[in-house]
């Protein structure tokens, strides 16, 4: 007889045999104490060490669904999430789960770069400090350096770590925020339109960074740019009016979508 652990383990592969990091089952989201049904029963297996993008017109629910994964919707009054979301088989909505610890495991990068009004060093060191990830000043310095290196910004800031994070350019600030997310040693990184406030050059640098980061992390990105989804992700989900219309390999979604609604959206018929 299989143990519960075995069953959990056996369900951690998707249909293509890849490791599944985040498993979502029948997820619903209601706003305004049930007045609005924003997400309607979504099932999805999100792959480990891959980039998954969510696309769809404004108001389709893609950001709402993203925010379910790290329980950001908990902070919204009147918002209710039902169903099951698990990371490595562990229920994210388990009442005994420490949400602060959960958010250490799930980093998040927002649309507008939001560095703390502190030094570059302190921006990165903040997470490791509050989560007790460093036992000494040297260890903390090492985490800061390696995070900035992995985010591809080390060479630009190494001589001015004491300067304010808010004094960097938009693209640098966003990479600083990615470095800050990495510093807490997360397993999943959520990105909510991370390049929409950046110019094309900075966007290209961040996209290259995302490509490098996927070797280590499960990355989920919400984007309004279909070209960006096509460039950076391996899997793409198309959302419409709270439903997941189609979820598949990015190449298939953009060259040969199965659903007419997907075809209509990617060819600009609505959205």
């Amino acid at each position, binding site marked *: 007889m299989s143990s519960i652990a075995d069953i959990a383990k056996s369900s951690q592969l998707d249909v293509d045999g890849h490791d599944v990091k985040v498993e979502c089952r029948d997820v619903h989201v209601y706003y305004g104490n049930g007045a609005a049904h924003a997400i309607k029963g979504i099932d999805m297996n999100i792959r480990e060490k891959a980039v998954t993008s969510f696309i769809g017109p404004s108001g389709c629910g893609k950001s709402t669904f993203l925010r379910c994964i790290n329980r950001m919707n908990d902070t919204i009054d009147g918002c209710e999430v039902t169903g099951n979301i698990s990371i490595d088989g562990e229920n994210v909505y388990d009442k005994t789960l420490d949400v602060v610890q959960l958010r250490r495991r799930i980093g998040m990068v927002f649309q507008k770069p939001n560095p703390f009004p502190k030094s570059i060093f302190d921006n990165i060191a903040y997470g490791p400090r509050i989560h007790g990830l460093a036992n000494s000043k040297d260890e903390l310095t090492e985490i800061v350096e390696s995070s900035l290196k992995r985010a591809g910004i080390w060479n630009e800031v190494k001589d001015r770590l004491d300067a304010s994070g808010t004094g960097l350019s938009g693209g640098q600030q966003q990479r600083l925020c990615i470095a800050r997310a990495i510093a807490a040693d997360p397993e999943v990184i959520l990105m909510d339109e991370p390049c929409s406030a950046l110019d094309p050059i900075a966007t290209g640098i961040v996209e290259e960074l995302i490509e490098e980061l996927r070797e280590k992390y499960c990355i989920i990105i919400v984007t309004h740019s*279909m*070209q960006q989804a*096509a460039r950076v992700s391996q899997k793409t989900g198309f959302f419409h009016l709270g439903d997941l219309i189609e979820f598949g390999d990015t190449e298939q979604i*953009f*060259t*040969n*979508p199965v659903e007419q609604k*997907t*075809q209509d959206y*990617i*060819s*600009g*018929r609505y959205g």
Partner: protein
Amino acid sequence: MADVVGVGTDLPIGESNLANLRSLTGRMLGHVEEQLHLVGMCIERDDPDLSQQVITSDFQVDQLEERILLSTVSTLALRQPLGRNLREVVGILRSATDLERIGDLSKNTAKRLLTIGPMMDQLPRPAMVQLHHYVADQLQIVGDLMAVEDPETIQGVLRADDRIDELHNSVFGELMAVMKNDQALIAVGIQALFMTKNLERIGDHVTNIAENLYYIHAGDVLPTDRPKSDVTSFMLDEKEHTS
């Protein structure tokens, strides 16, 4: 010269560009069909003026191919079509190359017909006419398929390539027999061999266009290991094509 239209229109992304590309392809197809039709008339009866017309009109086909190339690049750069639209843009670009080749082969056939001239009476004209008609019919069917999606008919065009190969084998054998019987006809016979090979190659390009249409429709490519019936590469004797 680029036919980029529709930037800023209220049509969905790329639709106006696609309509423009379809229109250019339709015009190119019309020119190529006319060229091949005139070639057929010249095979049936020696007509140097018509042959000359095929040769001089080919530049229009070349110009249309260039316009399709420029319009395709503009559409990809400015509209970034996706899904079926992307497949159609790529399919049109590939088909334009095939149409341009059909135009070139028709032009070369017309040149050879001018060279053969009245000597055509000494050659197996009915078999050549039959091969031409069959190829021209397939081009017309494929032209209709560009306007109306019909996967079953696409498969029919692909199967018809076998019949074209068989007809070519037959003409090839008959021309060999003519040249064996009368060595004075070797020079025109060789011209006729190249001419009929052109027709067989036109059939291959028609098949390519049908494959492009299948890709646009289904988003998938057909198996490439279709059986080939052209045996002329192995023929040393005019009777071998019947074996």
